[in-house]
C-alpha cells in the first residue's frame, strides 16, 4: 500500500483535492488507525480528486460498483460540480491502495454520503481552477467561468490540462463547498447512461471471476458435508499423485491447486475425508418455535397477537464469490468481488498476521451483491493456497458453494397486534420480530401508542445482511396486518392507510401509486384480486399496488405499480431500473424462494432446486418516481424491494379470501381452503 504522500506524488502534476468528510454526511467514512501505515491517512478522508496536466479528471472513492450504478452516479456528481463532460472523468473505486478508506458499500449510503462528498471535492477543484485562471490571466475572479470542460474569461479560454500544466497544487478541504442546488443541475438529475455499459455488453469487463495472472493455478477447498463438522481423517494420496496437483493441508484447512479447473475439481473429488458431524438443533420446518424458544429476552407471544413467519433466503448473486491472490516479497495482492474491500483487507491482514499496508485488495466492478458480499471467504482461501504453493491462485466459488458457505437473509417470526377505533384510527400497535432483524421495524403510520421490538434469537444458519435487511420482512407483516385491520374495520385498504398516514411524503407515494394503478376504479373478476402496501426505509418512501390472478391455486402477478420517492432524483432511468429490478427480485422472496435445510445441510443448493424469478414470472411493472428537488437525495438500491410482498399477499387475499401469513407465500401455489399445500 502506498501512503497518501506517495500517492499524491505518483499522480504527478496538476490539482489534487483531498476531502475531509464533515460529520454531517460521513459518519461511515472514518478510518481509525491503520496498522503499519507510514503516514496514516487523516481520519476522515473520504474522497479525492485529481486533475492531471493532460486534463484527465480522476476521482477516487472506496465505494464499489455492484450493479447499482454508483459508478455512473458518482461520475455525474463530479461532472456536475466540475462542469465537465461525463466522458472526461475516470472513477477509481474500491482499490485499497488507491482510494481512501471506506467502511463498505451497503445500507444505501453511497448516495446520501459519498455522493455529496464527491460533489464537494469537485466543486473545490472547480474553484481552484478559477483561482488559477484568475492568477495566470490576471483577471478578476468573478469574470472567470467554468463550463463544458473549459475555463473562460473574456476572450480567453483554456482546457483543464492547459491550466494545470506545471502546477502541483494540493488542497485539503473540510468546509462544505457551495454545491449546485438540485433545481439548477445539468448533469446530475439526468439519465446519464451506464458509464461502463459498453465494456459489459462486449464482454470485455474483467470481473473478479475473470481475472487471470501469469502462472496462475486453480484452487478448490474441501468443505465439510455439514455445518460444524470437523475433519477426523484425510487420505490425500490419490490427489497428490495427479499431475500438477498440490494438496495444501494446514489444520482443518484443506485445499488443492491445479493448472486447470477440471484437474482441480478432480483432485478435490479424490480427497478421501472422514468427518465428525454434529447433531442439528433445528431445521427449516421446525425453526419458527426455535426462534421464540431461543429469544435472548424471552418470548412475548400472546394469543391476541397474529403470527407470521419468514423463511431464510439466499442472495444468489449471479457471479459467485471469486478471488485471485498472489504474493510478492511478503506482500499480498487480491482481486475479489466484495462490498467491503477495506474490510477484506483487514480480514486478510489479521489472518496472515501482516500489516495492512502489505495487503492490496482490488475490487473490479462485481456481478452483484444484494448485501451478500460483505465477507472475504474466497479472498482468504485464494491467499492461503497462493501462500502455500508460491503461485498465484484463483479461487472461484461454485454455485453450490455460494448457496451453502456464504450467508443468508435471516428467517424469523413476527407477531403483530393492534387496536382500531370504529372510525378506522389505529390507537395502539404492537409488533415483535424474532430473529429477522430491526430494519424497518417502526411503523411509518401515526399511532398514539406503539410497542415495537426486535428480539435476537439463535440462528441455525449463518445469517447477515440482504437487500433492505429485515425491512422486507417487517413491511410484509406490517402491511399484511394493516390489510387485516382494514378488512376487520370494513374499510377500503387505501382509505385505511390514508386514514392513519400523516406523513406527507408517505401519503404522496400512496396516492401516486393508487392514481397510476387506478385503484379506485379497479374491477374484481373471479380469481383476480388487488392489493396495496406502503412503507419507509433508509430515506426512501415506497407504495406498491399489485394485481394477481389465481388459477387453480397458481398465483400469477399480473401488474404492479410502484411509487418511490427518495428526495432529489440523481438519475431517473437508473432509479427506474432499480425500482423495477427490486420489484422483480422481491417477487422471489414473496412467492417461492426459501432455503430448505435439515441435519446441518442445505437441501436446495442448486438453481434447479432453488427457484428465482424468471422472465415468465414478470408482471407488467410500472414505476412512478416522485422527484423532490427540495430534499437531499437518499439511496435507492434497497427500499424499493419492501413493497411487493405485502401488495401481492393482500391481492391474493382479495382474490381468494385466504390470508397467507408466511414468506414465501406460495411455493407450491395457494391452497384451497382447508388444504395443506403451503
Amino acid at each position: 500500500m502506498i501512503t497518501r504522500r506517495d500517492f499524491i506524488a505518483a499522480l504527478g502534476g496538476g490539482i489534487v483535492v483531498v476531502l475531509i468528510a464533515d460529520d454531517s454526511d460521513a459518519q461511515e467514512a472514518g478510518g481509525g488507525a491503520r496498522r503499519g501505515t507510514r503516514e496514516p491517512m487523516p481520519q476522515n478522508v473520504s474522497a479525492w480528486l485529481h486533475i492531471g496536466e493532460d486534463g484527465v479528471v480522476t476521482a477516487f472513492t472506496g465505494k464499489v460498483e455492484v450493479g447499482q450504478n454508483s459508478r455512473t452516479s458518482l461520475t455525474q456528481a463530479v461532472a456536475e460540480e466540475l462542469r465537465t463532460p461525463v466522458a472526461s472523468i475516470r472513477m477509481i473505486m474500491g482499490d485499497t491502495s488507491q482510494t481512501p478508506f471506506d467502511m463498505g458499500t451497503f445500507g444505501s449510503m453511497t448516495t446520501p454520503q459519498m455522493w455529496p462528498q464527491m460533489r464537494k471535492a469537485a466543486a473545490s477543484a472547480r474553484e481552484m481552477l478559477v483561482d488559477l485562471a484568475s492568477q495566470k490571466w490576471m483577471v478578476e475572479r468573478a469574470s472567470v467561468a467554468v463550463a463544458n470542460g473549459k475555463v473562460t474569461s473574456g476572450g480567453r479560454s483554456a482546457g483543464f490540462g492547459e491550466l494545470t500544466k506545471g502546477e502541483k497544487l494540493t488542497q485539503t478541504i473540510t468546509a462544505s463547498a457551495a454545491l449546485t442546488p438540485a433545481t439548477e443541475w445539468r448533469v446530475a438529475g439526468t439519465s446519464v447512461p451506464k458509464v461502463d455499459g459498453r465494456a459489459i455488453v462486449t464482454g470485455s469487463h474483467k470481473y473478479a471471476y475473470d481475472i487471470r495472472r501469469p502462472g496462475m493455478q486453480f484452487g478448490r477447498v474441501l468443505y465439510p458435508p455439514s455445518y460444524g463438522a470437523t475433519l477426523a481423517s484425510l487420505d490425500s494420496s490419490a490427489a497428490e499423485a495427479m499431475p500438477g496437483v498440490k494438496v495444501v493441508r494446514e489444520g482443518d484447512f484443506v485445499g488443492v491447486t491445479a493448472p486447470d479447473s477440471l484437474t482441480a475439481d478432480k483432485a478435490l473429488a479424490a480427497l478421501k475425508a472422514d468427518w465428525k458431524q454434529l447433531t442439528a438443533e433445528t431445521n427449516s420446518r421446525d425453526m419458527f418455535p426455535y426462534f421464540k424458544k431461543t429469544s435472548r429476552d424471552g418470548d412475548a407471544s400472546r394469543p391476541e397477537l397474529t403470527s407470521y413467519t419468514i423463511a431464510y433466503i439466499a442472495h444468489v448473486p449471479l457471479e459467485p464469490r471469486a478471488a485471485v491472490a498472489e504474493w510478492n516479497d511478503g506482500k499480498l495482492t487480491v482481486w475479489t468481488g466484495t462490498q467491503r474491500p477495506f474490510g477484506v483487507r483487514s480480514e486478510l491482514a489479521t489472518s496472515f498476521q501482516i500489516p495492512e499496508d502489505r495487503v492490496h485488495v482490488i475490487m473490479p466492478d462485481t456481478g452483484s451483491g444484494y448485501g451478500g458480499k460483505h465477507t472475504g471467504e474466497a479472498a482468504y482461501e485464494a491467499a492461503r493456497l497462493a501462500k502455500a504453493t508460491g503461485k498465484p491462485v484463483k479461487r472461484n466459488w461454485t454455485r453450490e458453494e455460494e448457496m451453502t458457505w456464504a450467508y443468508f437473509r435471516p428467517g424469523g417470526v413476527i407477531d403483530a397486534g393492534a387496536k382500531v377505533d370504529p372510525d378506522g384510527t389505529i390507537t395502539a400497535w404492537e409488533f415483535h420480530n424474532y430473529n429477522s432483524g430491526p430494519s424497518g421495524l417502526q411503523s411509518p403510520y401515526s399511532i398514539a401508542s406503539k410497542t415495537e421490538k426486535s428480539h435476537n434469537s439463535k440462528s441455525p444458519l449463518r445469517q447477515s445482511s440482504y437487500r433492505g435487511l429485515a425491512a422486507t420482512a417487517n413491511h410484509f407483516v406490517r402491511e399484511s396486518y394493516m390489510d387485516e385491520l382494514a378488512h376487520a374495520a370494513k374499510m377500503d385498504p387505501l382509505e385505511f392507510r390514508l386514514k392513519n398516514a400523516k406523513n406527507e411524503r408517505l401519503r404522496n407515494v400512496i396516492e401516486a401509486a393508487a392514481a397510476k394503478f387506478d385503484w379506485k376504479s379497479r374491477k374484481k373478476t373471479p380469481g383476480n384480486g388487488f392489493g396495496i402496501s406502503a412503507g419507509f426505509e433508509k430515506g426512501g418512501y415506497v407504495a406498491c399496488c399489485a394485481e394477481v390472478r389465481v388459477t387453480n391455486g397458481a398465483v400469477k402477478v399480473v401488474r404492479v405499480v410502484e411509487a418511490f420517492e427518495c428526495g432529489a432524483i440523481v438519475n431517473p432511468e437508473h432509479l427506474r431500473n432499480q425500482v423495477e429490478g427490486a420489484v422483480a427480485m422481491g417477487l422471489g422472496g414473496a412467492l417461492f424462494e426459501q432455503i430448505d435445510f435439515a441435519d446441518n445441510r442445505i437441501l436446495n443448493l442448486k438453481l434447479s432446486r432453488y427457484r428465482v424469478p424468471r422472465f415468465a414470472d414478470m408482471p407488467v411493472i410500472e414505476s412512478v418516481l416522485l422527484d423532490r428537488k427540495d430534499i437531499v437525495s437518499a439511496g435507492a438500491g434497497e427500499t424499493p424491494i419492501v413493497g411487493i410482498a405485502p401488495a401481492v399477499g393482500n391481492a391474493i387475499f382479495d382474490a381468494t379470501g385466504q390470508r397467507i401469513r408466511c414468506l414465501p407465500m406460495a411455493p407450491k401455489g395457494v391452497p384451497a381452503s382447508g388444504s395443506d399445500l403451503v
Partner: protein
Amino acid sequence: MARITELDVNGSRRRLDVEPDRTLLSVLRDDLDLTGTKYGCGEGQCAACTVLIDGVATRSCLTKVGSVSGKRIVTIEGLAPEGKLHPMQEAFLEADALQCGWCTPGMILGAVSLLQKNTHPTDAEIVSGMNGHICRCGTYPRIVAAIRSVAGKGGRA
C-alpha cells in the same frame, strides 16, 4: 477420445491442447481468456454461459469441448467486429437492460439466436424463448424491450 487441438472461435482458428471432456465454458475462459462467457450455475439453469454454436444458442457449461470440434463458436467477444456493436448490444444499452451485467453476454447471445429462429416474435414468444436465462437484478422487462426493439428494426440479428 483424442485431445482437442483446434477450435473455430469468433471466426479464427485457435490452437490449443485440451482434454475433450473439459467443458467448453472452462476452455473458453481459462485457455482462451474469453471471459465474456460467464459461469452462473454449472447445470444449465441460468444460461449465463450461452455461446452460439453454428448460430444456435448453447449452454457452454454443459457442452464438452470434444463435441464442438470443427463447429463455428461465437462468444460475446466475437459477436460484432472490433470496435463496433451488434444491434442487440446497442439495444441492451439503449434500454438500460442491465445492472451488474453478469448475465448480459449470455442474454445478448440468447436473444440473437432467438431472433434468428423467429425474426418477429411476440412478447410472449420472447418470454418463453428467453425463460432459461436468469437476470438476478431483475431487468427482465427491459431485456424484452431491447429484443422487441431489434426485432422491430427488421430483426437484423
